[in-house]
């Protein structure tokens, strides 16, 4: 109180450590710069906006480097400097690296799509950067208000991105579906947050955790309801079953790079939010969210994999739909360590497996989307049967896709996929969730089937072309796509040689 009386201004205005908040800030500033530049650039110069976006994202990712030693905090309460709204700890940095790197690859994928489909350039790059800024802010947020704001900053631009193909009815429908279901989920989450605030009187995660340890008897139900409702919004973002129904149509309707973006960054947003809320804010309610997330994980992986298994390869958009459903299945694996954290002695260690898995998944899934983007340029329907004989036409591309699919399946030579699954699996076993481990094993087997069936297509002899039609000349892989495939491929191969690079997160205490 003394300080307040002496210096009323300093007590309210929190100090800001600009270096710490550089990664999301750079992305946000870049977004604004792109939007303004779009107004003033002549039409023929507008293709420059794409490389500028990539550069901004690279810069934002590089700004993580000075932060890597030690925990930095900012936006702390002046009354209690230990309670902060923005923390750059190892968890934050790992997820921010994932988000910014994935956004960079998605931007590379977008370059050809923006040109081919004549998407509005300024809007597209602005929306992408804005969404990435929100996604990069989220893992650093340590109070519920910032979390929800970051979640919305990440989500709102993505609705617009999905609907950006204006001429296409499917695209608009997908955007509307996505928007309505997402807004409902966020509203439910907000209600949960308000319940939690009512029960605890604080929004900072640490304080909420303290208060929840001994809630007043009358407020117990309110707090438990609040905890459960808060999770819904984040579960929606990870596309966990039963909050997944928007996924396949949205992915198939959106421009392909946007689907790739959502499949990785949407998930990163969802699971990092879940981890923060569960492990940081509600640790004492583990008996509520632990079983709930375990059931959610089991449902998600089973639902996603079974649906992916049922995709018929000759149907239009079956490749993207398969990736969409398989991403639902993979989201199930991501949830397993979070559920296990409820039962673990050191929850911060268990969730590391999620981060490690997400790093692997981000690299190989984006790689698979990059190859799909290439195939989609010649075969607009992008059916799995269109991949037949890809090895004969484009050996390196086919080998890369085969490697990505084997990583997703968890088979050698995709060593990193295998060991990331082992890390996730061992958290379930350690937590005594034997049944969840068994469900996961069954799902790995189901997934093997459709990943392998796709891989086998790549190496089959090309379908005999109709005698009248001249054989189409193989299309060269566009330069940005080559860069994206090479980048993700190098990361996947590097991680397979030295899995410790990703798996060290599974052994460290992140939070």
């Amino acid at each position, binding site marked *: 109180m003394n300080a307040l009386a002496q210096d009323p201004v300093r007590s309210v205005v929190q100090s800001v450590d600009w270096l710490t908040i550089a990664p999301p800030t750079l992305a946000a500033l870049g977004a604004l710069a792109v939007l303004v530049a779009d107004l003033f650039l002549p039409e023929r110069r507008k293709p420059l906006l794409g490389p500028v976006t990539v550069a901004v994202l690279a810069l934002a990712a590089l700004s993580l480097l000075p932060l890597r030693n030690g925990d930095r905090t900012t936006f702390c309460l002046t009354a209690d400097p230990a309670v902060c709204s923005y923390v750059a700890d190892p968890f934050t940095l790992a997820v921010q690296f994932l988000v910014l790197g994935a956004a960079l690859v998605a931007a590379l994928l977008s370059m050809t799509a923006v040109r081919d489909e004549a998407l509005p350039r300024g809007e597209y790059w602005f929306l992408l950067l804005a969404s990435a800024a929100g996604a990069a802010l989220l893992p650093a947020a340590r109070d519920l208000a910032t979390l929800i704001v970051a979640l919305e900053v990440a989500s709102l631009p993505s609705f617009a991105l999905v609907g950006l193909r204006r001429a296409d009815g499917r695209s608009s429908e997908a955007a509307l579906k996505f928007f309505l279901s997402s807004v409902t989920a966020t509203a439910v989450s907000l209600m949960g947050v308000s319940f939690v605030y009512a029960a605890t009187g604080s929004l900072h995660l640490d304080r909420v955790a303290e208060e929840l340890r001994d809630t007043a008897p009358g407020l117990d139900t309110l707090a438990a309801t609040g905890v459960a409702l808060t999770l819904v919004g984040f579960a929606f973002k990870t596309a966990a079953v039963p909050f997944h129904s928007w996924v396949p149509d949205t992915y198939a309707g959106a421009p392909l790079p946007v689907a790739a973006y959502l499949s990785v960054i949407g998930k990163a947003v969802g699971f990092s939010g879940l981890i923060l809320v569960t492990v940081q804010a509600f640790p004492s309610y583990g008996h509520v969210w632990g079983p709930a997330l375990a059931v959610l994980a089991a449902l998600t992986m089973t639902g996603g994999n079974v649906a992916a298994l049922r995709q018929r390869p000759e149907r239009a958009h079956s490749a993207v739909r398969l990736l969409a459903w398989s991403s639902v299945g993979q989201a199930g694996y991501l949830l397993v360590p979070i559920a296990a954290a409820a039962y673990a002695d050191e929850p911060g260690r268990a969730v590391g497996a999620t981060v*490690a898995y997400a790093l692997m998944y981000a690299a190989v899934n984006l790689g698979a989307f990059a190859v799909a983007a290439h195939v989609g340029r010649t075969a607009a329907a992008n059916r799995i049967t269109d991949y037949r004989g890809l090895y004969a036409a484009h050996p390196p591309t086919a080998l890369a896709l085969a490697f990505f699919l084997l990583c997703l399946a968890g*088979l*050698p*030579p995709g*060593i990193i996929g*295998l*060991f990331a699954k*082992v*890390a996730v*699996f*061992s958290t379930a*076993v*350690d937590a005594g969730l034997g049944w969840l*481990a068994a469900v996961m*094993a069954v799902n*790995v*087997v189901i997934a*093997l*089937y459709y990943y*392998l069936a796709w891989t*086998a297509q790549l*190496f*089959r002899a090309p379908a005999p072309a109709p005698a009248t039609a001249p054989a189409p000349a193989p299309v060269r892989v566009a330069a940005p796509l080559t860069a994206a495939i090479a980048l993700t491929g190098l990361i996947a191969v590097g991680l397979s040689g030295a*899995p*410790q690079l990703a*798996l*060290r997160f*599974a*052994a460290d205490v992140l939070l």
Partner: protein
Amino acid sequence: MIPLNDTAMRLLLAAVVVLPLLGAGAALLPAPPGLRGRSPEQAVLRHGVTVTGAVLAATAVLALGFDHDRPGTMQAETDIGWIPALGVRIHLGTDGVSLPLLVLTALLTFLCALYSYHRPPEGPRPQAFVALVLLLEAGTLATFAVLDLMLFFLAFETVLIPMYFLIARWGGAGRERAAWRFVLYTLLGSVVMLLGLLLVGLGAEGGPTFDMTALAEDGGRGLTHTTQLLAALAIGIGLAVKTPMWPLHSWLPDAHTAAPTVGSVLLAGVLLKMGTYGFVRIVLPVVPDGIHTLAPYLAAFAVTGIIYGSLACLALSRSGAGGDLKRLIAYSSVGHMGFVLLGVATLTRTGVNGALFANIAHGLITGLLFFLVGAVKDRTGTTDLDRLALGGGERGGGAALYGRAPRLGGLLAFGAVASLGLPGLAGFWGEMLALLGAYHPADGLSRPAYLVFMALAALGTLLTAAYLLVVVRRVCMGTPHAPGAAPAPGTALPDVRGHEFAAWIPLVVLTVLAGLWPAILLGLTGPAVQNLLPGVSR
């Protein structure tokens, strides 16, 4: 026999695993100047011979440098960390159990490469063929050389992809379906196996470890009986698919029938051994209580496999059944691997030594048989037994090898009698020791049950002899002519060529050697088995 210091041995073993891997990568690159040869195809096939030859030389030196006075201890050990987060280490080493298998693998792959050099595979680019064979060799050698459960799993799986493509791209009729079936069966099995390995590794006493030697020393301490049972069951299923054990064998006949000659030789000669090796190396020492409970069931399945395999072969060898010779040898493999599993299931030193011996013998003999059948197919254009058995007078049909290609016929007869377990040849000792083990199984196992198994397995040897002799009679002698009809002279088939002799003679020599001097193998495996089965006196 030749003194080598420890570092040299370690490097040799590492080279044995890494060389084929590097060679596989190099096979896909264009040949450097000076090594171009007559054509890119010839150059890459020669590259295959060179690399497999180098690997064979390295294993030979390894076998000579191996301290034969203490084959029970791990030698040439390398142990470096790889993924500390999961406790996975790059741990290589060899002892009396794995050394013979390493040599067998290197030898068979070299012979296959030699054979392919002179008779290039029919199918797409030989570059990919050579790369796949080398990758296959790397995976197999790694399976036998690694001492870490996770690496074992990796190596075990690495083999799948090259084998799939060898069958699917270079195979015969029905190849894509057969290859797909092979991959699905083994993958399903190995996922189950991975669960078992994780159960063992994560539940190990003193924290998670996947080190086979450490786990074997623990001997299942720290694991409850239920865990051991589950782990033994899970690992056992994965290995049994690969072995293959009846009733999980049904991928094998199709895969063999469709595979190219080289694929069949490697599949039967080397890949099947990975399953039984896993039983001896992992299941027996790491989860002894679990396998003790499961052993009678394993033995029952093994014996069923012996009887089933030989009955299937008898049915195929009948006149008019339209049996395929490759399919027949594949089914005979089911029977032979049944003996190996029976030996393992006795849980005695005698039985396990017999199993390891039968393993090697089957690799040599069945490898030879598949080579020979490939040669018969080259010459007559068919592997259909009925067509091969038609009278020698029919134009284009009928093998009657004794008359038309006597050396080939002689070798085929040799392979057949070796396979039926004639004393004095390699096939005899393994099966006899397995039966001997079943006569007196480990303490706690029901002796009457094992006596029944032994009797049935002995019956199986009789049936085996029956169908193999039928095959020899029909293929080598041809069908007798109606009395009175003048025997029409068959057109001569090209007899065994030089490169074929070169590929087959080593197998023949080793079959005779192992038959006459079994101590050469038993001296290696005996002490090693003693270590893997502590507390067993027989």
